[in-house]
Each structure stands twice: as structure tokens, then as C-alpha cells.
């Protein structure tokens, strides 16, 4: 009992406050987004805003349960929880129901649950538990491979459900591995690959290869002119040229048609205002029309008249942008940044590796959602349907993020006691 009393006094209050603020902003935005004059009460349970309030209430109950759980449970049962989630991911492939092309939902009596949302949490737990072992070091190939395996398994299972967005989220764990000592090269090479990919789509492989040759030849003048460097540059040129040539093949044969269009739309190679470009175009109009101060609560014409699809879920940021303007969007982004920085500070003060790795998992996953979701609504990333943490409509996602965050809050509050 002594421990439980101290829990609530030791909880990181600024984070809790940020969580509650974002959740409230989400609820009000959902209300504005699907506002229906016939059901004008924000508590009307037949509407999404009424339901979201219910989800929020249940999320807080969930949070309370987490705070009352013994911290050792999370470390001790990490692999068990991970195993259960993997089984659920397999089960959903076999028995799940399909929504918007993704077979990723369990439907139990009108109630929908998306296991992929919880897989992010359990992957974080499993990774933390694994790296917490005394015999694991990320410099070891074995440790690195097992870590990647832990991350890749749920990712591939989600991909099999045609839920590309959620599958990509697992890529965020690279950030965790980076913090724990993974070389920066994967990050840098990944970034270069993305840049080359985009350049090829814009200019075609030939010009990119010519450009590469020019750049590499230029850099030769700043190097020592010996055979070794020439061979190195040639090797770099050969590998990157191979990559460049394969881009078109991957783009045309591996990606699905809708993914191709989304990328083309993003790069401005395809207008398609009625098709794939529609969401992004409408979303930009909604945000752009907000101006500096916004149109005011419930005054948004774009979102209220349902021009933006998925506006209460993946495109909820539009409502914020339209009704609260630049001021509102800056505040929301500011709140997220504050949350992330606070979480980094918390993660760094953990004595146990388990706590720190788990903390960075929470940061990485939330940051990835935040970055991709907002980038998508303002036309900086292709349309990848993933929710904005705490703000988007939906029980599964809210509970999963609440669970992740509160487990970390609990670990942090108990940091002096845990192993």
C-alpha cells in the first residue's frame, strides 16, 4: 500500500497534463469534424464524439489499472505479452474482418479491435526486455539480428494484412536501436536511398546516374588520389547505380497501384484531384483556409461539410488547422514536441536499460505517428493511413497509446524500486 500511495505523488505530472490536453483537443476536434445539427450534444453516444468520450473514459480506467500494476510484471511478462500479440496478429489474418482494404480488425459484437495497435506496445516491451539482458550488446551481430527479428516479425504480419501504414511504424524502432548503439550508417544510408528514390522518379535513372558520376568525380578532387580511393568511389558508384536502376522496377512491380499514385501525387507528378490526390488536396485546402487565427470552433466549412475524407481519424489535423488556424496548429505541434522532449528526459534518467529502451520505444512510435500523420495532411509525405496519437478518433489507437504511455509513466514513477 505504501508503494501505491507514492505512485501518484511520483508520477510525471507535465506528461500526464500533456496527455490530457491532447486527448481533449482530439475530442473537441472530432466533435467539430463530424458535427451534426441533429445530434448537437457533444455527449451523444450515437455520434463519434460521444463514443470518443467513452473511449477516453475507458482509457483513463486502463491508465489507472496500469498504475496499480506491479512494474515487475512488464519486464517479467514482456515476451509472453509479445507472444500473445503475435498470435493475435496471425489470428486476425485468419478470422479478421476487412475495413478499407486492410484485414486487420477483430469484430466482436459491433466492437472493433486492431491487434496491430497493441503490437507496437508489446514489441517495445520485448525489445526492452531483450536488450536488458546482460549478454546483449548491439555491437554483436547476434544481438542486432535478434533485435531486428523482434521488430520485423510483427511488421511483416501487419504487412500481410495489407495495413502498410502500421507495418511502416515498426521502422521507427530503428531510432531505439540507434540510441542503444546501432551505427548511424543505417539511418544515413536510408536517407540517401530515399533521396535517390525520389530523384529517380523525378528525373529518370539516366540523369541520376550521370549526376552521381559527376558528384563522385568531384569528390575525388578532395580526396587523396590513390588507387584505394578510386576503387572505393567506383564501388560506391556501382552500388548506387544498381540501386538507381532497380528503383523503377520496384516502383512498377513491387508497389501496389494505389501506393504508386500516392507517391506520384506527393511528388507532384500526378494531379488526380478526384482520386488519390483528392484527400491531400482537400486537406491542404482545409488547413490553408484556416489562415492565422482560424475560422473558429465549429465554423470550418471544409470539415463540417465533409470535404475531407477520414477527417475524424487520419485527417483530424485538418479540423485543427481550419478552425484554429496557424495558431492552433503551432500549439498542437508545440505540445507534441514538449511531450517528446519530456519523454526523452524521462528515458535518459532511467537506471534500468529495460526502462530506457521501453521509453525510447514509446517516443519512437509516437514520434513516427506524429511526423507521418502531419506530414501527410500538409502534403509532405504520401498518404499513409496512420492516426495522430491521442487526437484521432478510435478506441484501439487511443487505448494502445494510453497503454504505452502509462506503462512508461509507471516505470518512471517506480524507477528507484525496479531492477
Amino acid at each position, binding site marked *: 500500500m505504501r508503494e501505491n500511495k507514492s505512485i501518484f505523488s511520483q508520477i510525471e505530472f507535465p506528461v500526464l497534463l500533456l496527455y490530457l490536453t491532447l486527448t481533449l483537443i482530439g475530442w473537441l476536434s472530432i466533435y467539430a469534424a463530424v458535427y451534426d445539427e441533429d445530434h448537437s450534444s457533444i455527449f451523444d453516444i450515437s455520434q463519434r464524439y460521444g463514443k470518443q468520450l467513452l473511449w477516453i473514459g475507458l482509457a483513463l480506467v486502463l491508465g489507472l489499472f496500469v498504475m496499480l500494476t506491479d512494474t515487475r510484471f512488464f519486464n517479467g511478462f514482456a515476451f509472453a505479452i509479445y507472444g500473445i500479440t503475435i498470435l493475435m496478429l496471425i489470428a486476425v489474418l485468419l478470422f479478421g474482418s476487412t475495413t478499407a482494404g486492410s484485414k486487420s480488425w477483430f469484430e466482436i459484437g459491433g466492437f472493433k479491435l486492431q491487434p496491430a495497435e497493441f503490437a507496437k506496445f508489446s514489441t517495445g516491451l520485448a525489445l526492452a526486455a531483450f536488450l536488458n539482458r546482460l549478454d546483449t*550488446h548491439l555491437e554483436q551481430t547476434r544481438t542486432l539480428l535478434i533485435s531486428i527479428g523482434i521488430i520485423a516479425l510483427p511488421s511483416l504480419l501487419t504487412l500481410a494484412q495489407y495495413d502498410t501504414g502500421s507495418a511502416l511504424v515498426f521502422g521507427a524502432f530503428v*531510432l531505439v536501436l*540507434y*540510441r*542503444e*548503439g546501432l551505427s548511424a550508417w543505417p539511418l544515413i544510408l536510408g536517407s540517401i536511398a530515399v533521396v535517390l528514390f525520389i530523384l529517380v522518379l523525378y528525373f529518370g535513372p539516366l540523369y541520376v546516374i550521370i549526376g552521381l558520376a559527376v558528384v563522385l568525380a568531384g569528390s575525388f578532387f578532395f580526396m587523396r588520389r590513390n588507387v584505394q580511393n578510386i576503387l572505393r568511389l567506383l564501388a560506391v558508384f556501382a552500388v548506387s547505380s544498381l540501386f538507381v536502376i532497380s528503383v523503377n522496377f520496384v516502383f512498377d512491380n513491387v508497389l501496389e497501384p494505389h501506393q504508386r499514385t500516392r507517391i506520384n501525387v506527393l511528388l507532384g507528378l500526378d494531379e488526380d484531384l478526384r482520386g488519390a490526390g483528392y484527400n491531400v488536396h*482537400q486537406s*491542404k*485546402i*482545409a*488547413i*490553408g*483556409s*484556416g*489562415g*492565422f487565427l482560424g475560422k473558429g470552433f465549429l465554423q470550418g*466549412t*471544409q470539415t*463540417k*461539410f*465533409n*470535404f475531407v475524407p477520414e477527417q475524424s481519424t487520419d485527417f483530424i489535423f485538418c479540423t485543427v*488547422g481550419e478552425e484554429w*488556424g*496557424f495558431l492552433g*496548429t*503551432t500549439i498542437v*505541434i*508545440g505540445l*507534441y*514536441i514538449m511531450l*517528446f*522532449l519530456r519523454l*526523452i528526459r524521462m528515458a*535518459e534518467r532511467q537506471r534500468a*536499460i529495460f526502462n*530506457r529502451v521501453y521509453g*525510447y520505444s514509446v*517516443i519512437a512510435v509516437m*514520434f513516427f505517428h506524429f*511526423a507521418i500523420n*502531419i*506530414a501527410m495532411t*500538409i502534403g*509532405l509525405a504520401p498518404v499513409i493511413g496512420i492516426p495522430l496519437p491521442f487526437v484521432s478518433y478510435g478506441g484501439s489507437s487511443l487505448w494502445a497509446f494510453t497503454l504505452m504511455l502509462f506503462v512508461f509513466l509507471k516505470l518512471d514513477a517506480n524507477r528507484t524500486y525496479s531492477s
Partner: protein
Amino acid sequence: MEGKKFNERRQIITLIILIIGGIFIIRLFFLQVINQSYKLSSQNNVLRFVTQYPARGTIFDRNGELLVYNEAAYDLLVIPRQAKIDDTLAFCRLLKIDITTFRERLAAARKYSRFRPSVFVEQISKEDYGFIIEKLYHYPGFFFQARTLRKYPRPIASHVLGDVGEVNNAEMERDPIYKMGDYIGKSGLEKFYEKALRGHKGMKIMMVDVHNREKGSYQNGLYDTLPVTGKNVYLGMDVRLQEYGEKLMVNKTGSIVAIDPATGEILALVTSPNYDPNLLVGRARGKNFNELLNHPQKPLINRAIGGTYPPGSTFKMINGLVALQTGSIDEGTRFSCQGKGSSPIKCTHSHVTPLSVQPAIENSCNPFFWNTFRNILNNPNLHGQKKALQYWHDKMLDFGLGKRFKTDIPFEVPGNIPDRDFYDKVYSGSWNAMTVRSLSIGQGEILVTPLQLANLAAIIGNEGYYYPPHLARSIGEENDTLPSHFTQRHETNIDRRYFRLVKDAMLDVFEGGGGTARRFKVKEFQAAGKTGTAENPHGKDHSLFMAFAPVDKPTIAIAVVVENAGFGSTWAAPIASLLMELYITGEVKRPELEKFLLENFPDPVEQ
């Protein structure tokens, strides 16, 4: 402490987060504060431009009788998302559809869009509409949209008036004014005068949401434009003449064309068999059209402008006129006729011999016109037979033959007048008057349409000129929209005295003791005419007759073709006579002749 080794990475991760946050804020600053274009776009989104359909122009005859008007019809539309039906059976009974149709249509509408309206039942009549609208409040998500349907007070002139249908893709591509679901004239006058008849669409600006739900009118309709009703088309047609002509042609195959010689206005354009124009309106249009298309008697063909026949004896006058004008013969030139023993063309009539041009026309003497035609080709002023034939060909074109008048209904054909090149090709250059002798009596390669034949009658009646035959006399309230070539006078450049000679000969057909149409003379006025029999290699000859009246200053020129009816004097001449009587005197006083024509025509199937 393993983690301490990579402590500096905390800063890098923090930096990544800050950079991304910064990029977002800068981007949002440009989107929301700097860039003004999205504010405009948002206005476009909320305003929906709703088209207001104009009423199509109506069509009147020369006396102001209504031929085509509009009747309101209603499409029942559904927005699947809003649709709520408690009693499906009652709903189906109300709409007179069966439950399978109901399910199929609702599924189709859902497939198209749950939010946008789809047509559920199209073209519901005014009567049904009144009944349904009273109960429609039981069924949210369903609503009516007004449309107009063409209506024909008299079931006549279907080929002239044409029909209206929904635009197809090719038509939309040709003229972007048309949008899916718009109506367009598909044939006849509806097609030719489409631009005048269609009017101008109006625009109503509504505030709508993305589901097309109207949220009220924008700025109280300040920027709305009203639709402009299409222009009315006034025809030269006389409804009574048209109707009577169609009546006389029932059960016969052929056509009648009557023209006002003074203006070229078409008074009647009958083709038989025909159909009730109301068949090609509304929901049954597609089905009925296919039935007509596949009908063995081909009722969709407009024989008056699209049927071609060898003109036979009716052609002899023009050959005579050209011969007189070129000096190949004169009024007194006589040729002898050996009747059935004539060579190379025998004569089927018995008459005095030798004879001059006027009695030759009256008696339709073949040998006379063979000699006349040979004289034209051998005329020294025309530089040899081949050049002479080309000259003759050009003259025929002056008479409106061998080419289109570009009249105002589609599917007009030019007929055929063979020229020098044609024979050079067919006979590899070696041919002469003998080779092409059938041209002298209007047989062989010559083909004319009933419209050209009627125009020929008008030219003779006018003594030398014509206006291209056309149906409309004015469009809207001003005349200037009529194509200018309709008011352009065409000359044949043949002296009037030769025409008078031909006229006298044609007058004798009605008035003379041996005239082939003397039995059909009307005492109130003098008519001139000429019978013709077009040889038909497939069966009984076609009966032809051309005429005009009154002879001195004709007000009507007419051509009648009855297919497979034998001699021109048996069927075509009395029909022409009755129609001229009706048009000039205003009534028909020969009921026994009318009865004979209606009841005694041999059933074509038995032939």
C-alpha cells in the same frame, strides 16, 4: 553503465524531433498565412454550381399549328445513404416496379455513390408524379428532378421532326456544352436546329457539402443566371397537307414532297411506311427504336430525301429544255417514231408521227427524246460527244439534280447524274451517244430523290429558277438565324419561252384529251403534271408523278412516288391531284377517289 556510451545520441534524437517540428511549423506558416490560393479553393468547394435546364424550343407549322411541345416528366432520384424504406412492397407498388428491379437499382445506386444522387426511376409521367409525390414523404432519401419530354399532338412527320435523346460520349467530346444526361437532337429538325432549340442553360449557385446536400442558395441568388428557353422553329410545312399525305400513303411504300415554288419551303414531306413520333420518347425509346430499326419495311428510312429512283419520263422535259437552249433542236424540230418498232429505243405509246417537242412530252415519246439527246451530244457548239456529255451533266446539276440541297434534315442523298469521267472509267474511254442512250429517257445510271423531283416541278412552275427546298421558314422571332443558302435563288439559265412550251405540254397531261392524268383534273384550278414509270429490276415498276398548280403562278409543286405500283397515272397522279386540291381550295371534294386510293391498293405482300 552500457547506455552512457551513447549519451550524445540523446542530443541527435532531440535535434531530429526539433527539426521535423520546425519544418512542420514553417510549412504550415506558408500554407495558412502566406498562401492565399487555398482560401479561394475552399470557397469553390462549398459552392456547387447547379445547372438549370432550359425548356427546349417548340416547333410550329406555317399556320401556327403546334407540331412539337414539351411535357414535364420527372426522374425519381435516390441518395442511398439517406434512403429509408420501411415497407418495400408498398414502395414498389407505388412506383409500379417489381421487387427485383427495386433491389437491383438500389444496389446500382449504392455502387455509384452512397452520397450522390442516382436516377432510380426515370421519366415518370405527370399523372404518376402527382400520385407518388403525395406519399414520398414516407421515403426519405428519394426526391424528384424535373425533366422535359417531347410530345407530338399529331402523330405525323416523324422523319421531319426527328427525335431527342441523351447525349453520347462522342457528342459530349465534340461540344463541351453537353454534360452527362443532357438531351440532344438525334435526328431530323431536332438535330439540325439543335443549337437554336436547346436554349442556354442557367446556373444556380448553391452552398453544398461534400455529399451534395444543399445548404441553401449562395448570396440569395445574386449570382444565379436563369436558363434561356430554346428558340421556337417555324416551319413552312402545312399540317393538314402533311397529315392528309400520310393518310393517303398508308399501306403504300413511297413518298410525297410538296414545295412552295416561290420560296422553296417544303409544304409536306411524307415517307411511308412511317411511325408515330411519340414512340421515340421517354422510357421506351431504346426498345422502340430497335424494333423500328429491325422492321422488315425499314420505316426509319426517309425515302423522300434518302430514296433514289430512275426518274423515267419525268426526266424528258429537262432533256428537251437543254436541247432547246443549246439549239440542238428547236420548237419545230420533228422526229419520226415507229412505235414498238423504233430503234434503238422503242415507244410504248401510240401517237402521230413525226412529232415536235411539245406533243412528244405529252405522249412521252421515247424515240423523240433519244434523237434529241443524240443531237445534244452531237451539237457542234459542244465540241464532241464527251465534252457535250459533261456539259449536259453540269446542266443537270443546275436543275438541282446529282447533288444535295443541304436541306435542314439529315440523311439527304445526292442521287446520281453520271459524268464523263464515270463513263470513261466504265467503258475504258470508248463510248458514245449510243452507249449512254438510256440517259435520254431518264433510265440507266440516273437516280433522283423525290425531293429533287418536286424541286424539278417547282423549277418548271417558276419557269427557270428555284430556292433550295427547306423546312424551316424562321427560327425564333428573327429570321436571320436561317442558313443563308436557303434564300439564295438558283438559276437554270434557260429561256423562259422554252419553259412555257414545256408547261403547255404538262398542262395537257391534265387538260388534254389524251392526257395521262385527265381523269384527275380539278375544275377550280389548272394543274400541270407529268407521269413517270421508273423501271424496277426487282419487281413491279415504281409509279412517279410530278406536278404543280395553278399553272400560271404555282403555289404548290409536288412529287409523288409509289413503289411497286406500276404506271404513274394509276396511283401517283391521283394522290398528287388530291393534295393539290386540298392545298389550293382548302378541301377535298372527291371522296370516292380518296376512298379508292385508301382501299384498293394491292397488298404489297401478295405481289
